[in-house]
Protein backbone atom coordinates (compact mmCIF):
# COMPACT_ATOMS: atom_id res chain seq x y z
CA UNK A 1 0.00 0.00 0.00
CA UNK A 2 3.00 2.27 -0.16
CA UNK A 3 3.81 4.88 2.41
CA UNK A 4 1.91 5.61 5.57
CA UNK A 5 0.17 8.68 4.25
CA UNK A 6 -0.57 7.29 0.80
CA UNK A 7 -3.84 8.35 -0.85
CA UNK A 8 -5.10 4.81 -0.31
CA UNK A 9 -4.75 5.20 3.45
CA UNK A 10 -6.54 8.53 3.32
CA UNK A 11 -9.46 6.93 1.45
CA UNK A 12 -9.60 4.09 3.97
CA UNK A 13 -9.42 6.66 6.73
CA UNK A 14 -12.30 8.66 5.31
CA UNK A 15 -14.37 5.51 5.11
CA UNK A 16 -13.66 4.63 8.73
CA UNK A 17 -14.20 8.26 9.68
CA UNK A 18 -17.67 8.25 8.13
CA UNK A 19 -18.67 5.37 10.39
CA UNK A 20 -17.13 7.03 13.45
CA UNK A 21 -18.91 10.26 12.55
CA UNK A 22 -22.33 8.63 12.62
CA UNK A 23 -21.61 7.16 16.05
CA UNK A 24 -19.95 10.33 17.36
CA UNK A 25 -23.00 12.41 16.42
CA UNK A 26 -25.13 10.35 18.79
CA UNK A 27 -22.67 10.84 21.62
CA UNK A 28 -22.34 14.53 21.11
CA UNK A 29 -26.08 15.19 20.71
CA UNK A 30 -26.98 13.25 23.83
CA UNK A 31 -24.17 14.91 25.75
CA UNK A 32 -25.22 18.30 24.49
CA UNK A 33 -28.74 17.82 25.75
CA UNK A 34 -28.57 15.73 28.93
CA UNK A 35 -24.83 16.02 29.77
CA UNK A 36 -24.50 12.26 29.92
CA UNK A 37 -21.82 10.11 28.34
CA UNK A 38 -24.08 7.40 27.03
CA UNK A 39 -21.85 4.41 27.49
CA UNK A 40 -24.38 2.16 25.83
CA UNK A 41 -24.19 4.12 22.58
CA UNK A 42 -21.57 1.78 21.12
CA UNK A 43 -23.96 -1.06 21.80
CA UNK A 44 -26.76 0.67 19.93
CA UNK A 45 -24.36 0.48 17.01
CA UNK A 46 -23.96 -3.26 17.64
CA UNK A 47 -27.75 -3.70 17.81
CA UNK A 48 -28.00 -1.93 14.46
CA UNK A 49 -25.45 -4.30 12.95
CA UNK A 50 -27.37 -7.35 14.17
CA UNK A 51 -30.67 -5.88 13.00
CA UNK A 52 -29.15 -5.39 9.57
CA UNK A 53 -27.84 -8.94 9.67
CA UNK A 54 -31.28 -10.32 10.59
CA UNK A 55 -33.26 -8.21 8.19
CA UNK A 56 -30.95 -9.13 5.34
CA UNK A 57 -31.83 -12.78 5.76
CA UNK A 58 -35.52 -11.98 6.13
CA UNK A 59 -35.79 -9.89 2.99
CA UNK A 60 -33.32 -11.87 0.93
CA UNK A 61 -36.23 -14.28 0.33
CA UNK A 62 -37.92 -11.68 -1.83
CA UNK A 63 -35.10 -9.53 -3.09
CA UNK A 64 -31.62 -10.18 -4.47
CA UNK A 65 -28.73 -8.27 -2.92
CA UNK A 66 -28.65 -4.81 -4.41
CA UNK A 67 -29.71 -1.24 -3.86
CA UNK A 68 -33.33 -2.01 -3.00
CA UNK A 69 -32.46 -4.60 -0.41
CA UNK A 70 -29.68 -2.43 1.02
CA UNK A 71 -32.14 0.43 1.45
CA UNK A 72 -34.65 -1.73 3.35
CA UNK A 73 -31.87 -3.13 5.52
CA UNK A 74 -30.62 0.40 6.22
CA UNK A 75 -34.08 1.56 7.29
CA UNK A 76 -34.56 -1.43 9.57
CA UNK A 77 -31.10 -1.07 11.12
CA UNK A 78 -31.84 2.59 11.82
CA UNK A 79 -35.24 1.70 13.26
CA UNK A 80 -33.67 -0.90 15.56
CA UNK A 81 -31.00 1.52 16.74
CA UNK A 82 -33.60 4.21 17.36
CA UNK A 83 -35.90 1.82 19.20
CA UNK A 84 -33.22 0.51 21.54
CA UNK A 85 -32.01 4.06 22.24
CA UNK A 86 -35.48 5.37 23.10
CA UNK A 87 -36.29 2.33 25.24
CA UNK A 88 -32.99 2.66 27.10
CA UNK A 89 -33.59 6.32 27.75
CA UNK A 90 -37.12 5.74 28.93
CA UNK A 91 -36.41 2.92 31.36
CA UNK A 92 -32.82 3.47 32.44
CA UNK A 93 -31.94 7.17 32.18
CA UNK A 94 -35.16 9.09 32.56
CA UNK A 95 -35.85 8.03 36.18
CA UNK A 96 -32.36 9.22 37.12
CA UNK A 97 -32.38 12.54 35.29
CA UNK A 98 -32.47 14.63 38.44
CA UNK A 99 -30.17 12.42 40.52
CA UNK A 100 -26.37 12.84 40.71
CA UNK A 101 -24.70 12.61 37.30
CA UNK A 102 -22.63 9.57 38.19
CA UNK A 103 -25.68 7.39 38.80
CA UNK A 104 -26.82 7.68 35.19
CA UNK A 105 -23.27 6.98 34.08
CA UNK A 106 -23.23 3.77 36.13
CA UNK A 107 -26.64 2.83 34.76
CA UNK A 108 -25.34 3.42 31.25
CA UNK A 109 -22.53 0.96 31.93
CA UNK A 110 -25.12 -1.49 33.23
CA UNK A 111 -27.17 -1.10 30.04
CA UNK A 112 -24.04 -1.54 27.95
CA UNK A 113 -23.14 -4.76 29.75
CA UNK A 114 -26.71 -5.97 29.57
CA UNK A 115 -26.89 -5.55 25.80
CA UNK A 116 -23.50 -7.14 25.21
CA UNK A 117 -23.99 -10.15 27.42
CA UNK A 118 -27.65 -10.61 26.56
CA UNK A 119 -26.77 -10.74 22.88
CA UNK A 120 -24.04 -13.27 23.52
CA UNK A 121 -26.26 -15.27 25.88
CA UNK A 122 -29.17 -15.61 23.46
CA UNK A 123 -28.47 -18.90 21.67
CA UNK A 124 -29.66 -17.58 18.28
CA UNK A 125 -26.98 -14.88 18.36
CA UNK A 126 -24.23 -16.27 20.54
CA UNK A 127 -20.85 -14.88 21.54
CA UNK A 128 -18.88 -15.97 18.48
CA UNK A 129 -18.34 -13.62 15.53
CA UNK A 130 -20.48 -13.97 12.43
CA UNK A 131 -19.67 -13.12 8.87
CA UNK A 132 -21.74 -10.25 7.54
CA UNK A 133 -23.46 -10.91 4.20
CA UNK A 134 -22.80 -8.86 1.08
CA UNK A 135 -25.93 -6.78 1.13
CA UNK A 136 -24.58 -4.96 -1.90
CA UNK A 137 -22.44 -6.72 -4.52
CA UNK A 138 -18.93 -5.36 -4.12
CA UNK A 139 -17.35 -3.55 -7.06
CA UNK A 140 -13.88 -2.08 -7.27
CA UNK A 141 -12.87 1.08 -9.09
CA UNK A 142 -9.35 2.23 -9.84
CA UNK A 143 -8.29 5.84 -9.86
CA UNK A 144 -4.62 6.28 -10.56
CA UNK A 145 -3.05 4.15 -7.79
CA UNK A 146 -6.02 4.20 -5.48
CA UNK A 147 -8.51 1.37 -5.19
CA UNK A 148 -11.97 2.48 -4.27
CA UNK A 149 -14.79 0.02 -3.69
CA UNK A 150 -18.41 1.00 -4.06
CA UNK A 151 -18.62 0.49 -0.28
CA UNK A 152 -16.45 3.57 0.25
CA UNK A 153 -18.89 5.55 -1.82
CA UNK A 154 -21.92 4.07 -0.06
CA UNK A 155 -20.42 4.71 3.40
CA UNK A 156 -19.58 8.30 2.58
CA UNK A 157 -22.89 8.93 0.80
CA UNK A 158 -25.07 7.51 3.56
CA UNK A 159 -23.11 9.31 6.27
CA UNK A 160 -23.13 12.53 4.25
CA UNK A 161 -26.85 12.38 3.52
CA UNK A 162 -27.71 11.73 7.16
CA UNK A 163 -25.48 14.56 8.32
CA UNK A 164 -26.99 17.01 5.86
CA UNK A 165 -30.44 15.93 6.98
CA UNK A 166 -29.47 16.45 10.62
CA UNK A 167 -28.01 19.88 9.96
CA UNK A 168 -31.21 20.87 8.17
CA UNK A 169 -33.32 19.54 11.02
CA UNK A 170 -31.34 21.38 13.66
CA UNK A 171 -30.84 24.68 11.85
CA UNK A 172 -34.05 25.09 9.87
CA UNK A 173 -36.96 23.49 11.67
CA UNK A 174 -38.95 24.34 14.76
CA UNK A 175 -37.99 20.99 16.23
CA UNK A 176 -34.32 21.80 15.76
CA UNK A 177 -34.77 25.15 17.41
CA UNK A 178 -36.39 23.41 20.35
CA UNK A 179 -33.44 21.02 20.55
CA UNK A 180 -30.98 23.88 20.58
CA UNK A 181 -33.01 25.63 23.24
CA UNK A 182 -33.08 22.55 25.48
CA UNK A 183 -29.34 22.10 25.15
CA UNK A 184 -28.77 25.68 26.21
CA UNK A 185 -31.11 25.85 29.16
CA UNK A 186 -33.57 23.13 30.06
CA UNK A 187 -35.57 25.16 32.55
CA UNK A 188 -35.95 28.18 30.34
CA UNK A 189 -36.94 25.94 27.45
CA UNK A 190 -39.62 24.38 29.60
CA UNK A 191 -40.97 27.82 30.45
CA UNK A 192 -41.17 28.57 26.73
CA UNK A 193 -43.56 25.66 26.36
CA UNK A 194 -41.12 23.12 24.97
CA UNK A 195 -41.81 19.55 25.96
CA UNK A 196 -38.31 18.80 27.24
CA UNK A 197 -38.85 15.07 27.75
CA UNK A 198 -40.06 14.71 24.19
CA UNK A 199 -37.03 16.56 22.85
CA UNK A 200 -34.72 14.33 24.86
CA UNK A 201 -36.46 11.21 23.52
CA UNK A 202 -36.14 12.60 20.04
CA UNK A 203 -32.43 13.18 20.55
CA UNK A 204 -31.97 9.59 21.63
CA UNK A 205 -34.06 8.49 18.65
CA UNK A 206 -31.89 10.34 16.14
CA UNK A 207 -28.65 9.30 17.83
CA UNK A 208 -29.78 5.68 17.96
CA UNK A 209 -30.87 5.72 14.31
CA UNK A 210 -27.49 7.09 13.28
CA UNK A 211 -25.72 4.42 15.33
CA UNK A 212 -27.92 1.79 13.68
CA UNK A 213 -26.96 3.08 10.23
CA UNK A 214 -23.31 2.98 11.29
CA UNK A 215 -23.87 -0.64 12.35
CA UNK A 216 -24.94 -1.58 8.84
CA UNK A 217 -22.09 0.34 7.23
CA UNK A 218 -19.54 -1.23 9.56
CA UNK A 219 -20.95 -4.70 8.89
CA UNK A 220 -20.74 -4.04 5.19
CA UNK A 221 -17.22 -2.64 5.30
CA UNK A 222 -15.62 -4.92 7.89
CA UNK A 223 -17.77 -8.01 7.42
CA UNK A 224 -17.56 -9.54 10.87
CA UNK A 225 -20.01 -8.80 13.65
CA UNK A 226 -20.11 -9.91 17.27
CA UNK A 227 -21.83 -8.77 20.47
CA UNK A 228 -18.77 -6.89 21.74
CA UNK A 229 -18.13 -5.07 18.48
CA UNK A 230 -19.53 -1.82 19.84
CA UNK A 231 -17.06 -1.24 22.65
CA UNK A 232 -14.02 -0.02 20.75
CA UNK A 233 -15.74 1.92 17.93
CA UNK A 234 -17.94 3.44 20.61
CA UNK A 235 -14.91 4.56 22.60
CA UNK A 236 -13.13 5.90 19.55
CA UNK A 237 -16.20 7.76 18.37
CA UNK A 238 -16.53 9.26 21.81
CA UNK A 239 -12.91 10.36 21.68
CA UNK A 240 -13.64 11.85 18.26
CA UNK A 241 -16.49 13.80 19.82
CA UNK A 242 -14.17 15.03 22.59
CA UNK A 243 -11.56 15.98 20.02
CA UNK A 244 -14.09 18.02 18.07
CA UNK A 245 -15.54 19.54 21.20
CA UNK A 246 -18.25 17.52 22.90
CA UNK A 247 -21.68 18.95 22.27
CA UNK A 248 -20.65 20.40 18.93
CA UNK A 249 -22.08 18.70 15.84
CA UNK A 250 -19.56 19.89 13.23
CA UNK A 251 -16.88 19.12 15.82
CA UNK A 252 -18.00 15.51 16.07
CA UNK A 253 -17.84 15.06 12.30
CA UNK A 254 -14.43 16.71 11.96
CA UNK A 255 -13.08 14.79 14.96
CA UNK A 256 -14.36 11.53 13.52
CA UNK A 257 -12.64 12.06 10.18
CA UNK A 258 -9.39 13.04 11.88
CA UNK A 259 -9.70 9.95 14.04
CA UNK A 260 -10.41 7.68 11.08
CA UNK A 261 -7.45 8.94 9.08
CA UNK A 262 -5.12 8.91 12.09
CA UNK A 263 -6.10 5.36 12.86
CA UNK A 264 -5.63 3.92 9.37
CA UNK A 265 -2.32 5.73 8.95
CA UNK A 266 -1.07 4.62 12.37
CA UNK A 267 -2.17 1.05 11.70
CA UNK A 268 -0.22 1.08 8.44
CA UNK A 269 2.84 2.01 10.46
CA UNK A 270 2.36 -0.41 13.33
CA UNK A 271 -0.75 -2.32 14.36
CA UNK A 272 -0.18 -1.76 18.07
CA UNK A 273 0.09 1.96 17.51
CA UNK A 274 -3.11 1.78 15.44
CA UNK A 275 -4.97 0.35 18.43
CA UNK A 276 -3.56 2.92 20.80
CA UNK A 277 -3.59 6.08 18.68
CA UNK A 278 -7.11 7.01 19.76
CA UNK A 279 -6.07 7.13 23.39
CA UNK A 280 -2.90 9.01 22.59
CA UNK A 281 -5.10 11.59 20.87
CA UNK A 282 -7.43 11.69 23.86
CA UNK A 283 -4.62 12.26 26.35
CA UNK A 284 -3.10 14.98 24.16
CA UNK A 285 -6.47 16.71 23.77
CA UNK A 286 -7.11 16.56 27.50
CA UNK A 287 -3.71 18.06 28.22
CA UNK A 288 -3.69 20.78 25.59
CA UNK A 289 -7.25 21.74 24.78
CA UNK A 290 -9.78 19.86 26.88
CA UNK A 291 -12.73 21.68 25.35
CA UNK A 292 -11.85 20.31 21.90
CA UNK A 293 -11.56 22.01 18.55
CA UNK A 294 -14.99 23.63 18.42
CA UNK A 295 -15.81 23.45 22.08
CA UNK A 296 -16.41 26.53 24.13
CA UNK A 297 -14.85 26.89 27.49
CA UNK A 298 -17.68 26.82 29.96
CA UNK A 299 -17.50 28.13 33.46
CA UNK A 300 -19.48 26.66 36.30
CA UNK A 301 -22.36 28.67 37.54
CA UNK A 302 -22.42 29.04 41.26
Amino acid at each position, binding site marked *: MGSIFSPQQIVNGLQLGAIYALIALGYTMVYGIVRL*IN*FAHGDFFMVGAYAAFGSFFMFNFFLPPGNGLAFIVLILAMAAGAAIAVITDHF*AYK*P*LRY*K*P*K*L*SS*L*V*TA*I*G*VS*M*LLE*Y*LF*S*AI*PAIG*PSPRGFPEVLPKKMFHFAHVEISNYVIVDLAVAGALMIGLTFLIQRTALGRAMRAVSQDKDAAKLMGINVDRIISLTFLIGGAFAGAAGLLAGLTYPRIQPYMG*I*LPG*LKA*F*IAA*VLGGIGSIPGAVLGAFIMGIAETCATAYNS*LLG*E*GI*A*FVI*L*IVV*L*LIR*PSGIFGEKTA*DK*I
Partner: protein
Amino acid sequence: MGNLKHMKLVMAGLIFYVVVQVLSLTGVLNGYFMVIINRSLIAVIFAVSLNLINGITGQFSLGHMGFAAVGAYVSGTFTTLLFHLNPHHSLDYLGFLAAILVGGVAASVAGFLIGFPSLRLKGDYLAIVTLGFGEIIRTILNNIPYVGGPRGLLGIPKFSTFTVIFLFAFGTIVLIRNLVQSSIGRSMLSIRENELASELVGVDTTRYKVLGFVVGAFFAGIGGGLLGHLLQIAHPTQYGFYASALILIMVYVGGIGSLTGSIIAAFSLTFLTEGLRVGIDWLRDTAGVPIGTEWTMVIYAVLLILIMLFRTEGLMGMRESKILIIKEKQG
Protein backbone atom coordinates in the same frame (compact mmCIF):
# COMPACT_ATOMS: atom_id res chain seq x y z
CA MET B 1 -1.41 -1.97 67.89
CA GLY B 2 -2.01 -1.29 71.50
CA ASN B 3 -4.07 1.63 70.39
CA LEU B 4 -7.65 1.29 71.61
CA LYS B 5 -9.22 2.82 68.55
CA HIS B 6 -8.16 -0.14 66.44
CA MET B 7 -9.19 -2.80 68.97
CA LYS B 8 -12.58 -3.70 67.52
CA LEU B 9 -11.27 -4.01 64.00
CA VAL B 10 -8.29 -6.10 65.08
CA MET B 11 -10.58 -8.36 67.11
CA ALA B 12 -12.95 -8.79 64.17
CA GLY B 13 -10.08 -9.60 61.85
CA LEU B 14 -8.56 -12.02 64.33
CA ILE B 15 -11.87 -13.82 64.85
CA PHE B 16 -12.39 -14.14 61.09
CA TYR B 17 -8.87 -15.46 60.61
CA VAL B 18 -9.01 -17.98 63.44
CA VAL B 19 -12.47 -19.26 62.49
CA VAL B 20 -11.53 -19.80 58.84
CA GLN B 21 -8.19 -21.32 59.76
CA VAL B 22 -9.79 -23.74 62.26
CA LEU B 23 -12.53 -24.71 59.81
CA SER B 24 -9.91 -25.26 57.14
CA LEU B 25 -7.62 -27.37 59.36
CA THR B 26 -10.52 -29.50 60.61
CA GLY B 27 -11.54 -30.08 57.02
CA VAL B 28 -14.94 -28.40 57.22
CA LEU B 29 -13.80 -25.98 54.51
CA ASN B 30 -12.12 -27.95 51.76
CA GLY B 31 -9.58 -26.60 49.30
CA TYR B 32 -12.30 -25.47 46.92
CA PHE B 33 -13.90 -23.23 49.52
CA MET B 34 -10.54 -21.90 50.59
CA VAL B 35 -9.89 -20.81 47.00
CA ILE B 36 -13.20 -18.96 46.96
CA ILE B 37 -12.43 -17.33 50.30
CA ASN B 38 -9.00 -16.30 49.06
CA ARG B 39 -10.53 -14.83 45.94
CA SER B 40 -13.13 -13.03 48.03
CA LEU B 41 -10.38 -11.47 50.12
CA ILE B 42 -8.58 -10.30 46.97
CA ALA B 43 -11.90 -8.95 45.71
CA VAL B 44 -12.14 -7.05 49.00
CA ILE B 45 -8.80 -5.38 48.21
CA PHE B 46 -10.04 -4.44 44.74
CA ALA B 47 -13.44 -3.23 45.87
CA VAL B 48 -12.21 -1.21 48.84
CA SER B 49 -9.52 0.49 46.76
CA LEU B 50 -11.94 1.24 43.93
CA ASN B 51 -14.34 2.64 46.50
CA LEU B 52 -11.65 5.11 47.52
CA ILE B 53 -11.61 6.42 43.93
CA ASN B 54 -15.26 6.13 42.91
CA GLY B 55 -17.01 6.30 46.23
CA ILE B 56 -14.96 8.55 48.51
CA THR B 57 -13.34 10.91 46.01
CA GLY B 58 -16.33 10.82 43.67
CA GLN B 59 -14.30 10.14 40.53
CA PHE B 60 -15.04 7.43 38.06
CA SER B 61 -12.52 4.75 37.19
CA LEU B 62 -13.51 1.99 34.82
CA GLY B 63 -10.15 0.31 34.41
CA HIS B 64 -9.36 -0.79 37.92
CA MET B 65 -8.27 -4.23 36.78
CA GLY B 66 -5.83 -2.61 34.37
CA PHE B 67 -3.85 -1.54 37.44
CA ALA B 68 -4.26 -5.01 38.87
CA ALA B 69 -2.78 -6.36 35.64
CA VAL B 70 0.24 -4.10 36.05
CA GLY B 71 0.69 -5.39 39.60
CA ALA B 72 0.23 -9.02 38.62
CA TYR B 73 2.64 -8.92 35.69
CA VAL B 74 5.33 -6.86 37.38
CA SER B 75 5.34 -8.87 40.59
CA GLY B 76 4.95 -12.16 38.72
CA THR B 77 7.93 -11.40 36.51
CA PHE B 78 9.89 -10.32 39.57
CA THR B 79 9.34 -13.54 41.56
CA THR B 80 9.78 -15.77 38.51
CA LEU B 81 13.13 -14.12 37.85
CA LEU B 82 14.05 -14.44 41.50
CA PHE B 83 13.27 -18.15 41.38
CA HIS B 84 15.65 -18.60 38.50
CA LEU B 85 18.42 -16.44 39.91
CA ASN B 86 18.26 -17.93 43.36
CA PRO B 87 17.99 -21.71 43.16
CA HIS B 88 18.47 -22.17 46.90
CA HIS B 89 15.20 -20.42 47.61
CA SER B 90 16.57 -18.65 50.60
CA LEU B 91 14.70 -15.48 51.50
CA ASP B 92 12.00 -16.38 48.98
CA TYR B 93 9.24 -14.96 51.09
CA LEU B 94 11.01 -11.66 51.47
CA GLY B 95 11.46 -11.55 47.74
CA PHE B 96 7.76 -12.26 47.31
CA LEU B 97 6.75 -9.46 49.64
CA ALA B 98 9.11 -7.11 47.84
CA ALA B 99 7.62 -8.23 44.52
CA ILE B 100 4.08 -7.51 45.67
CA LEU B 101 5.11 -4.04 46.82
CA VAL B 102 7.01 -3.39 43.59
CA GLY B 103 3.86 -4.42 41.69
CA GLY B 104 1.82 -2.00 43.76
CA VAL B 105 4.28 0.82 43.16
CA ALA B 106 4.32 0.11 39.41
CA ALA B 107 0.53 0.22 39.36
CA SER B 108 0.48 3.50 41.23
CA VAL B 109 3.00 5.00 38.80
CA ALA B 110 0.67 3.94 35.98
CA GLY B 111 -2.17 5.48 37.98
CA PHE B 112 -0.31 8.77 38.21
CA LEU B 113 0.46 8.85 34.50
CA ILE B 114 -3.18 8.18 33.65
CA GLY B 115 -4.73 10.22 36.40
CA PHE B 116 -2.75 13.40 36.13
CA PRO B 117 -3.95 14.56 32.69
CA SER B 118 -7.54 13.42 33.16
CA LEU B 119 -8.01 14.45 36.76
CA ARG B 120 -7.15 18.05 36.08
CA LEU B 121 -10.52 18.14 34.41
CA LYS B 122 -13.87 17.68 35.95
CA GLY B 123 -16.26 14.91 35.40
CA ASP B 124 -16.57 11.97 33.16
CA TYR B 125 -13.33 12.03 31.20
CA LEU B 126 -11.61 9.79 33.70
CA ALA B 127 -14.12 7.05 32.92
CA ILE B 128 -13.17 7.05 29.27
CA VAL B 129 -9.44 7.36 29.90
CA THR B 130 -9.41 4.50 32.39
CA LEU B 131 -11.57 2.32 30.17
CA GLY B 132 -9.15 3.00 27.36
CA PHE B 133 -6.23 2.32 29.67
CA GLY B 134 -7.66 -1.10 30.53
CA GLU B 135 -7.92 -1.94 26.84
CA ILE B 136 -4.44 -0.64 26.08
CA ILE B 137 -2.85 -2.62 28.89
CA ARG B 138 -4.52 -5.73 27.55
CA THR B 139 -3.29 -5.04 24.01
CA ILE B 140 0.23 -4.33 25.21
CA LEU B 141 0.37 -7.48 27.33
CA ASN B 142 -0.91 -9.48 24.38
CA ASN B 143 1.99 -8.18 22.35
CA ILE B 144 4.95 -8.65 24.70
CA PRO B 145 6.38 -12.12 24.12
CA TYR B 146 8.57 -11.84 27.22
CA VAL B 147 5.51 -12.02 29.51
CA GLY B 148 3.85 -14.70 27.42
CA GLY B 149 1.78 -12.57 25.04
CA PRO B 150 -1.71 -14.01 24.58
CA ARG B 151 -0.63 -17.18 26.40
CA GLY B 152 -0.25 -15.27 29.63
CA LEU B 153 2.53 -15.25 32.18
CA LEU B 154 2.81 -18.85 33.29
CA GLY B 155 4.57 -20.53 36.17
CA ILE B 156 4.36 -17.81 38.78
CA PRO B 157 5.37 -19.44 42.06
CA LYS B 158 2.50 -20.01 44.46
CA PHE B 159 3.13 -17.76 47.40
CA SER B 160 -0.33 -16.43 48.14
CA THR B 161 -1.59 -18.47 51.04
CA PHE B 162 -4.69 -17.70 53.04
CA THR B 163 -2.57 -16.06 55.74
CA VAL B 164 -0.72 -13.80 53.33
CA ILE B 165 -3.88 -12.77 51.48
CA PHE B 166 -5.71 -12.18 54.72
CA LEU B 167 -2.94 -9.98 56.07
CA PHE B 168 -2.83 -7.90 52.92
CA ALA B 169 -6.62 -7.56 52.77
CA PHE B 170 -6.75 -6.60 56.42
CA GLY B 171 -3.91 -4.12 55.96
CA THR B 172 -5.70 -2.59 52.97
CA ILE B 173 -8.89 -2.14 54.94
CA VAL B 174 -7.07 -0.56 57.90
CA LEU B 175 -4.98 1.79 55.77
CA ILE B 176 -7.83 2.94 53.56
CA ARG B 177 -10.09 3.36 56.56
CA ASN B 178 -7.48 5.47 58.31
CA LEU B 179 -7.01 7.53 55.17
CA VAL B 180 -10.75 8.07 54.70
CA GLN B 181 -11.25 9.12 58.29
CA SER B 182 -8.32 11.53 58.30
CA SER B 183 -8.30 15.15 57.17
CA ILE B 184 -7.16 13.94 53.73
CA GLY B 185 -10.22 11.73 53.56
CA ARG B 186 -12.47 14.63 54.50
CA SER B 187 -10.94 16.68 51.69
CA MET B 188 -11.66 13.81 49.31
CA LEU B 189 -15.26 13.57 50.51
CA SER B 190 -15.69 17.29 50.02
CA ILE B 191 -14.62 16.90 46.39
CA ARG B 192 -17.28 14.26 45.92
CA GLU B 193 -19.97 16.37 47.49
CA ASN B 194 -19.17 19.55 45.60
CA GLU B 195 -15.94 20.01 43.78
CA LEU B 196 -16.40 23.70 43.12
CA ALA B 197 -17.31 24.49 46.70
CA SER B 198 -14.40 22.53 48.09
CA GLU B 199 -12.03 24.30 45.73
CA LEU B 200 -13.43 27.60 46.94
CA VAL B 201 -12.70 26.77 50.57
CA GLY B 202 -9.11 26.04 49.66
CA VAL B 203 -8.97 22.30 49.03
CA ASP B 204 -6.34 21.49 46.41
CA THR B 205 -8.80 19.36 44.45
CA THR B 206 -6.43 18.12 41.75
CA ARG B 207 -3.94 16.99 44.35
CA TYR B 208 -6.48 15.00 46.35
CA LYS B 209 -8.09 13.53 43.27
CA VAL B 210 -4.71 12.35 41.99
CA LEU B 211 -3.77 11.13 45.46
CA GLY B 212 -6.95 9.07 45.78
CA PHE B 213 -6.43 7.67 42.34
CA VAL B 214 -2.79 6.76 42.93
CA VAL B 215 -3.50 5.12 46.29
CA GLY B 216 -6.40 3.18 44.75
CA ALA B 217 -4.17 2.03 41.89
CA PHE B 218 -1.47 0.99 44.36
CA PHE B 219 -3.80 -1.36 46.20
CA ALA B 220 -5.22 -2.66 42.93
CA GLY B 221 -1.64 -3.54 41.99
CA ILE B 222 -1.18 -5.31 45.33
CA GLY B 223 -4.38 -7.28 44.73
CA GLY B 224 -3.27 -8.18 41.23
CA GLY B 225 0.07 -9.41 42.52
CA LEU B 226 -1.64 -11.59 45.12
CA LEU B 227 -4.04 -12.96 42.50
CA GLY B 228 -1.15 -13.83 40.21
CA HIS B 229 0.64 -15.67 42.99
CA LEU B 230 -2.58 -17.47 43.94
CA LEU B 231 -3.57 -18.71 40.48
CA GLN B 232 0.07 -19.03 39.36
CA ILE B 233 -0.84 -17.38 36.10
CA ALA B 234 -1.45 -13.84 34.89
CA HIS B 235 -3.47 -13.74 31.71
CA PRO B 236 -4.56 -10.65 29.74
CA THR B 237 -8.20 -11.77 29.66
CA GLN B 238 -8.35 -11.92 33.48
CA TYR B 239 -7.98 -8.17 33.59
CA GLY B 240 -10.35 -7.04 30.87
CA PHE B 241 -13.41 -4.87 31.06
CA TYR B 242 -15.48 -7.77 32.41
CA ALA B 243 -13.30 -7.99 35.49
CA SER B 244 -13.25 -4.23 36.06
CA ALA B 245 -17.01 -4.08 35.68
CA LEU B 246 -17.45 -6.80 38.28
CA ILE B 247 -15.47 -4.79 40.84
CA LEU B 248 -17.45 -1.71 39.90
CA ILE B 249 -20.67 -3.60 40.56
CA MET B 250 -19.37 -4.64 43.98
CA VAL B 251 -18.72 -1.02 44.89
CA TYR B 252 -22.12 0.25 43.71
CA VAL B 253 -24.09 -2.68 45.12
CA GLY B 254 -22.31 -2.36 48.46
CA GLY B 255 -22.79 1.38 48.59
CA ILE B 256 -20.61 4.18 47.30
CA GLY B 257 -18.46 5.46 50.08
CA SER B 258 -19.13 2.59 52.46
CA LEU B 259 -16.12 0.33 53.01
CA THR B 260 -18.33 -2.06 54.93
CA GLY B 261 -20.60 -2.32 51.92
CA SER B 262 -17.66 -3.03 49.63
CA ILE B 263 -16.39 -5.79 51.91
CA ILE B 264 -19.80 -7.43 52.16
CA ALA B 265 -20.44 -7.10 48.43
CA ALA B 266 -16.99 -8.48 47.55
CA PHE B 267 -17.70 -11.61 49.55
CA SER B 268 -21.30 -12.05 48.44
CA LEU B 269 -20.66 -11.45 44.77
CA THR B 270 -17.60 -13.72 44.66
CA PHE B 271 -19.65 -16.50 46.22
CA LEU B 272 -22.63 -15.67 44.00
CA THR B 273 -20.45 -15.81 40.88
CA GLU B 274 -19.23 -19.23 41.88
CA GLY B 275 -22.76 -20.35 42.73
CA LEU B 276 -24.12 -19.12 39.41
CA ARG B 277 -21.31 -20.87 37.59
CA VAL B 278 -22.12 -24.16 39.32
CA GLY B 279 -25.83 -23.63 38.69
CA ILE B 280 -25.36 -22.85 35.01
CA ASP B 281 -23.06 -25.83 34.54
CA TRP B 282 -25.66 -28.03 36.18
CA LEU B 283 -28.48 -26.67 34.03
CA ARG B 284 -26.46 -27.20 30.89
CA ASP B 285 -24.91 -30.57 31.60
CA THR B 286 -27.55 -32.30 33.67
CA ALA B 287 -30.81 -30.63 32.74
CA GLY B 288 -29.74 -30.04 29.14
CA VAL B 289 -30.78 -26.39 29.01
CA PRO B 290 -28.77 -24.60 26.33
CA ILE B 291 -27.36 -21.88 28.54
CA GLY B 292 -23.97 -20.24 28.76
CA THR B 293 -21.90 -18.50 31.42
CA GLU B 294 -22.84 -15.19 29.78
CA TRP B 295 -26.03 -15.30 31.80
CA THR B 296 -23.99 -14.59 34.94
CA MET B 297 -23.08 -11.21 33.53
CA VAL B 298 -26.63 -10.63 32.29
CA ILE B 299 -27.83 -11.13 35.86
CA TYR B 300 -25.15 -8.78 37.18
CA ALA B 301 -25.97 -6.12 34.63
CA VAL B 302 -29.64 -6.26 35.58
CA LEU B 303 -28.67 -6.18 39.26
CA LEU B 304 -26.57 -3.07 38.68
CA ILE B 305 -29.33 -1.29 36.76
CA LEU B 306 -31.96 -2.16 39.36
CA ILE B 307 -29.73 -1.02 42.22
CA MET B 308 -29.08 2.28 40.47
CA LEU B 309 -32.77 2.81 39.69
CA PHE B 310 -34.27 1.82 43.00
CA ARG B 311 -31.51 2.15 45.56
CA THR B 312 -29.04 4.56 44.04
CA GLU B 313 -26.98 4.75 47.21
CA GLY B 314 -26.34 0.98 47.28
CA LEU B 315 -27.26 -1.55 49.94
CA MET B 316 -25.29 0.05 52.76
CA GLY B 317 -25.67 3.60 51.55
CA MET B 318 -23.09 5.77 53.22
CA ARG B 319 -23.26 3.82 56.45
CA GLU B 320 -20.21 2.24 57.96
CA SER B 321 -20.10 -0.64 60.39
CA LYS B 322 -19.18 0.48 63.93
CA ILE B 323 -16.13 -1.76 63.72
CA LEU B 324 -14.69 0.42 60.97
CA ILE B 325 -15.29 3.78 62.62
CA ILE B 326 -12.41 5.35 64.46
CA LYS B 327 -13.67 6.61 67.80
CA GLU B 328 -12.68 10.18 68.51
CA LYS B 329 -11.76 11.03 72.08
CA GLN B 330 -14.68 12.54 73.92
CA GLY B 331 -14.56 16.22 74.87
